């Protein structure tokens, strides 16, 4: 019989802390705006009530959260007033990730995130906020045993196998640094800072600020503002670099029987386990900057939710890897995928469409700006041939490859993405052609895999080729059974 357990009490602290973080900013705004200059103790009543409620709610939800498992299912009960009981069969579990935050480390516990199959993101996952290491190990062992019994795939299951196998892939310190420097995370930080400032909008007297800015601007102060902007951008970039270095520090990929185990992180150690059977595809990203150094990024498309903290279904297998090593690493992890395919290029008549496509939406704004800022604005016109040149690069990069059991699509230039998908993992294929495409006998291929909304596409493939890919999935039964 299963015993019901509570989380380690540190879960109370982290839970209340998370809730407080959410209510703190609105509360601050309420207090500052509500007091209207003359501050009295009455203004604190509402915030104090909210604080007290948050803390009590946090404690109660810890008290009311129990979990337990037997040899087949994991059961979680939660909810202070409305009880929600969830039963998760072990064989439905898609993957597990383990995180050690600072609080968890202090208490000697870990946070466990369990992904299950399901269409609704958020509904299909369970987080155990603070569980001791031994317990996680026992849970993982029980899950694996249940799965093996169900699949009967590993009859020679001896304990020796459970020891850490040598890593298939690691990052050197230099590579961690390079990965951080060349990541696009800087833009993410800028966005976050912007979101933060707009949240503070009620507090900061922007109007007064803008008036000053305008005065400085008019008073030959463009340089100041330019320099301030540049410094802010560089600072954001610096923060992103540090974040990424922390994230990818001591990165290692191991294969343990039928699971790919990825461990990474400094301050916050994270372990992501992905069963090979749940991998839906392999993606290789090459941003133009990394391509210059001969590097690429490899990620797995994974059926569950956001195991890795990134977008749903995306698990980074190699943050940065020399292009020539990709094939052997992926082959070691996922022998079913064949990365050494020859790509069919797009037909010559698609080239002009790739050149013109960026111009459709660039033309009017660029011409307008060039006219308004004449005569020097005419320099902007150089953007147009540049865009066309990028179009040609995109045309050259795009392509597709087909084998009896695998479809590969490649597109993009700034960030070239190659997606490898097995036939039996494809959920549907769409071929579409606009009136213009039909006139040139071209079409767009788009292939969808799990999770919801993940698809790869290539624009302006030869119409006959697109039809061939479509029929390839259609003819599935005839050549597989």
């Amino acid at each position: 019989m299963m015993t019901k357990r509570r989380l380690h009490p540190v879960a109370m602290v982290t839970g209340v802390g998370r809730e407080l973080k959410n209510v703190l900013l609105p509360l601050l705004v309420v207090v500052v705006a509500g007091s209207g200059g003359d501050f009295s103790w009455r203004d604190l009543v509402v915030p104090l009530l909210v604080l007290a409620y948050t803390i009590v709610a946090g404690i109660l939800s810890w008290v009311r959260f129990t979990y337990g498992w037997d040899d087949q299912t994991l059961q979680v009960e939660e909810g202070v007033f409305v009880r929600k009981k969830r039963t998760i069969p072990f064989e439905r579990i898609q993957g597990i990730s383990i995180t050690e935050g600072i609080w968890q480390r202090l208490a000697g516990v870990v946070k466990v995130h369990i992904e299950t199959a399901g269409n609704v993101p958020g509904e299909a996952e369970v987080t155990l906020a603070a569980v001791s290491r031994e317990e996680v190990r026992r849970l993982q062992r029980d899950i694996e045993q249940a799965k093996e019994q169900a699949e009967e795939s590993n009859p020679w299951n001896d304990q020796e196998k459970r020891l850490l196998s040598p890593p298939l892939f690691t990052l050197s310190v230099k590579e961690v640094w390079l990965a951080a420097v060349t990541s696009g995370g800087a833009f993410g930080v800028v966005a976050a800072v912007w979101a933060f400032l707009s949240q503070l909008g009620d507090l900061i007297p922007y109007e007064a600020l803008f008036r000053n800015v305008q005065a400085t601007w008019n008073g030959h102060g463009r340089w100041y503002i330019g320099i301030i902007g540049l410094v802010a951008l560089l600072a954001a970039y610096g923060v992103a670099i540090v974040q990424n270095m922390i994230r990818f520090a001591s990165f290692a990929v191991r294969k343990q029987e039928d699971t790919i185990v990825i461990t990474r992180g400094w301050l916050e150690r994270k372990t992501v386990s992905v069963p090979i059977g749940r991998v839906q595809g392999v993606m290789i990203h090459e941003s133009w900057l990394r391509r210059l150094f001969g590097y690429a990024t490899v990620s797995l498309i994974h059926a569950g939710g956001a195991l890795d903290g990134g977008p749903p279904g995306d698990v980074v297998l190699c943050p940065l890897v020399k292009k020539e090593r990709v094939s052997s690493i992926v082959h070691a992890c996922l022998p079913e995928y064949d990365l050494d395919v020859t790509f069919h290029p797009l037909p010559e008549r698609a080239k002009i469409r790739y050149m013109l496509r960026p111009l459709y939406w660039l033309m009017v704004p660029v011409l307008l700006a060039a006219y308004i800022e004449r005569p020097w604005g005419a320099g902007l016109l150089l953007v147009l041939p540049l865009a066309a040149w990028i179009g040609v690069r995109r045309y050259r990069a795009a392509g597709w490859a087909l084998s009896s059991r695998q479809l590969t699509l490649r597109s993009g230039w700034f960030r070239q993405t190659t997606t490898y998908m097995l036939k039996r993992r494809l959920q549907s294929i769409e071929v579409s052609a606009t009136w213009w495409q039909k006139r040139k006998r071209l079409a767009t291929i788009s292939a969808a895999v799990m999770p919801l909304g993940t698809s790869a596409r290539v624009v302006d493939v030869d119409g006959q080729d697109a039809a061939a890919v479509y029929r390839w999935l259609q003819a599935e039964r005839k050549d597989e059974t």
Partner: protein
Amino acid sequence: MLRNSGKPISEKAITVWRLTGVLVTLASGGVVGGIAWFLSRFHVPKWWLVVLVGIWVVEAILWVGWLPPLRQKRWRYDIREEEIEIQHGVWSTTWTLVPMNRVQHVDVRQGPFLKRYGLASVVIFTAATVHEIPALSEPEAEKLCRLIAEWAKVADRNDD
């Protein structure tokens, strides 16, 4: 290139889409009216209003007069034991292929307009995508839903 094949959807779809088009046009008429009223307070030249109304009239013709019959004509579907094929689109034609063993569940849906004309839509879910066949006659939709559910189950069993 892929050919045009499959069964058409109900012709009453045109009427339903025209009705929806009327609603959409009325709603956008409200928006256009609001903009016109707002602009008129700033003494803008009259021809701006003419342009606005012109855009609105074109939209009305498109949504009520022109698009519904074309959409109905272009929409084709074909359901066989092993796969579902859907083809649709006026400006851009899309051919969709869903192998039967990928289907997770099927819904029959009916809005007020569809119900009024005895029509229903079939919505097909896979683990990664959602596909709709709109405006089928009620018995046809029921039949398709049952067939797909049945075939998807069989295909699943063969797959294991």
